[in-house]
């Protein structure tokens, strides 16, 4: 099982795009959303940015396990209408 690294696709929206510059980020070796956020914070200056996390199109409020096919979205506060 050593070669079974998790690779998740992260989609980025709103003002977070100004920081990532890219709408799609691949992150490897993360098993849950807490680990994902830690990884992202190493890569990008996300400090003080407010955003929700959706896993497979559902917003999650607690640490959530991820698997190889998870689609994670980083969602800044909505401003439609």
């Amino acid at each position, binding site marked *: 099982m050593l070669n079974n690294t998790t690779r998740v696709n992260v*989609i980025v*929206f*709103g*003002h977070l795009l*100004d920081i990532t510059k890219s709408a799609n980020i691949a992150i490897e070796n993360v098993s849950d959303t807490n680990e994902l956020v830690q990884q992202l914070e190493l890569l990008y200056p996300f400090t003080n940015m407010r955003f929700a996390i*959706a896993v497979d*199109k559902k917003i999650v409020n607690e640490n959530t396990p991820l698997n190889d096919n998870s689609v994670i*979205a980083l*969602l*800044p*506060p*909505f*401003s*439609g*209408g």
Partner: protein
Amino acid sequence: MSAKQPKNVFVQGPIEASFIADSIQKHSSQTNIGAHSIFLGQVRSDLIKARKVAAIDYTTYEEMALEEMHEIREAIFLKYQLTCMHIYHSLGKVAAGEICLFVFTSSKHRKAAIEACEETVERIKAELPIWGKELFEDDSYQWKENK
């Protein structure tokens, strides 16, 4: 008539007054309708730190937004005695003075249409993953924040 099928709600660019008129006109054959309630969101040219908003550029997480919209639609149809409900939101650039949101509810009596329209607007603003980027006249921008 049905809340069962997921429907697309997104329109590229502004929502035209003629499109709204067509939507209204289409309901004239439904003679069990007594009341329509319509909400329209219009892009304001707010002045922010001496820069004037010329347009808003809307983006969405479409797959998620359509699922959320479907849930909102089902909840509203369960709660209110509606004949029908139509919702359209712009994507892309909508200039100041143009319409970016069109919510249209119809019912036999006015109470259901009015309350359903208001609740749907609130839920759209709070729950749909849509982001507005306010484009200023000087080509700078800022990300919109809803109150």
